[in-house]
């Protein structure tokens, strides 16, 4: 009851947005509507504008969060849903949904230590996990100083900053910490929101960023694009192959390329802790969900055309907004998948 109440709420919101759009331009009866992840909202809007200029088709995307996007597509009120967290193939099977990645993102640790520049601090996954577990509480703890012999770290308490709202960013962060720390896996686990053993919570990337900027000695995590655009002090992290890497478009793409996307059906692959020398360890992808046998086949076909254009020609748009394009091989796999799965 509560869920249906909630989703009907969102349904109305989506319908409302949709009808106003129809009213604005009733010529395009086949507008493409989507809802979900707020992380992809900037790039989807840009793609939508460029695509509209080129073809006259409109894409109306509602940035209501991944959970909302999944609820919307399950209620079939939108043509596609977008989620930072992939659904399991069994779950997709049950509702008849197809799933594919559209853009690469990822999570970056950011710190506030006066005098320390971006990329100066080096972390390993287990050390980050122990800080977030509340086991390492000072910046001059031997576990951190031994990784950073060149940096003078203060005798200061570490203030952990996490997300207070449920988020795909948190899911990928917690998923990575679960992969590198058995204690995190048993005590906290992974999910869009978890029971944090320590720290304070900020709402959204901007909330976390505001807290990290305000509190000296804090350590938080934000999306890559957010860290780059706001020039935050990010850190290096040691990847699975033992190399310390900076977060950048290149290392994110390397992480995405080294993942084996064919191993699981429906691209069910969480690409954190990817192998490869240059791979950023906390890489993630945003998934689009669509019906395999949609009620409105024409509109669904239009949506696929839009995504085909976005994956093939929209990559410059993506780079200009600090999103990471999908590797070419993956784009091929996705197009084969479309041909096979979506009618």
């Amino acid at each position, binding site marked *: *009851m*509560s*869920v249906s*109440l*909630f989703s009907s709420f969102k349904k109305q919101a989506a319908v409302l947005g949709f009808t106003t759009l129809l009213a604005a331009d009733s010529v395009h009866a086949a507008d493409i509507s989507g809802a979900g992840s707020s992380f992809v909202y900037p790039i989807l809007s840009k793609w939508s504008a460029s695509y509209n200029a080129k073809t006259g088709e409109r894409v109306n995307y509602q940035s*209501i*969060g*991944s*959970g*909302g996007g*999944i609820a919307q597509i399950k209620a079939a009120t939108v043509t596609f849903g977008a989620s930072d967290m992939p659904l399991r193939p069994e779950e997709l099977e049950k509702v008849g949904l197809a799933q594919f990645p559209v853009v690469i993102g990822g999570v970056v640790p950011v710190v506030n230590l006066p005098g320390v520049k971006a990329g100066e601090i080096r972390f390993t996954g287990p050390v980050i996990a122990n800080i977030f577990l509340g086991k390492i509480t000072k910046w001059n703890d031997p576990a951190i100083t031994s990784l950073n012999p060149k940096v003078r770290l203060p005798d200061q*308490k570490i*203030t952990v900053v996490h997300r*207070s*709202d*449920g*988020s795909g960013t948190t899911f990928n962060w917690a998923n990575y910490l679960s992969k590198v720390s058995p204690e995190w896996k048993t005590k*906290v*686990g*992974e*999910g*869009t*929101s*978890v*029971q*944090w053993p*320590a*720290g*304070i*919570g*900020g*709402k959204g990337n901007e909330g976390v960023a*505001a*807290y990290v900027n*305000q*509190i000296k000695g*804090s350590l938080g995590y934000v999306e890559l694009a957010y860290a780059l655009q706001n020039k935050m002090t990010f850190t290096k992290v040691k990847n699975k192959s033992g190399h310390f890497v900076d977060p950048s478009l290149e290392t994110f793409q390397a992480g995405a390329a080294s993942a084996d996307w064919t191993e699981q059906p429906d691209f069910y692959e969480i690409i954190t802790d990817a192998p490869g020398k240059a791979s950023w360890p906390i890489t993630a992808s945003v998934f689009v969900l669509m019906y395999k046998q949609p009620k409105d086949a024409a509109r669904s076909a239009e949506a696929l055309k839009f995504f085909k254009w976005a994956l093939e020609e929209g990559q410059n748009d993506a780079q200009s907004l600090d999103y990471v394009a999908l590797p070419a091989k993956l784009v091929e796999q996705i197009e084969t998948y479309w041909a096979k799965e979506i009618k």
Partner: protein
Amino acid sequence: MFKSYPALAMDRSDQASSRDRHDKRADMLFHLVVKGCALLVLIALLGAAFSMLWGGREAFATFGWKFLWSSDWDAVQRKFGALVPIYGTLVTALIAMIIAVPVSFGIALFLTEIAPVWLRTPVAAAIELLAGIPSIIYGMWGLFVFVPFMAEHVDPWLDENLGALPITGPLFQGAPIGLGMLTAGIVLGIMVIPFVASIMREVFLTVPSEIKESSYAIGSTTWEVVWDVVLPYTRSAVIGGIFLGLGRALGETMAVTFVLGNAHLLSASLLEPGNSIAATIANEFTEADSPLYLSSLIALGFLLFAVTFIVLAVARLMLMRLAKRAGENRQ
């Protein structure tokens, strides 16, 4: 014409009775409309309470009474408890009222008794304007201006000077991050002041000047007039204004979300981050991904309802007892 006189009289009485009937009908309609207005509030109130209870039934059924005193809030294990948000809500509202009530009293006192007449209207208007500022503005001011001030000046001082005291010490220990219960309470206090102050000012103005003047005439000071004459005369309205402020402090969402720290951790210290019911719902509702999670959030909403109701009921009870005692004293 003459002949028609009795007929005219008849006509008049007929007219009168039809007018009576018309009046009666209009009266009844009026009663119904007014009653409907009052009932509407009651229905809305009960409807809101019931629908939240219904939405939260899964959480209540799963956790039972434990939901009230469990400090768990784990979306992964699907274990939820309301203790941390309830505690945070009550503590921040308490701090807010400790600040807001005396300050508002001072403002109202100044504006009605002490301030020069030309100053009263502009200051009163300014206070009412303050009440109209959206809470998100208070939140942003709190985060970007007040939190750094607390972190640099207030928190370290409290930790150093009060943190070592034997009984109240634990209230003031913690890392000076600026966010936390104390900051949230102070910001809430500032938000509540305009409401309480403008009501107090208005009811102070209703005190007949004869009463005040007689008191002045027998040699009372301004303080004595206000404390012994104005306040007893307006007591129930003043307390009503305080309730209104308290209600707002208990349910405030946006400003608290910015400065409270949003951490589901139970801590005695006022300098540590916490969580409130309204902030938890605002933070987590959009991404609550399991039915039980969503149900727990709606159940929290019901508890906020219940907490507000209990706090107001207790306050009213205290008021009744106070009135009784005052009556006894007079005899």
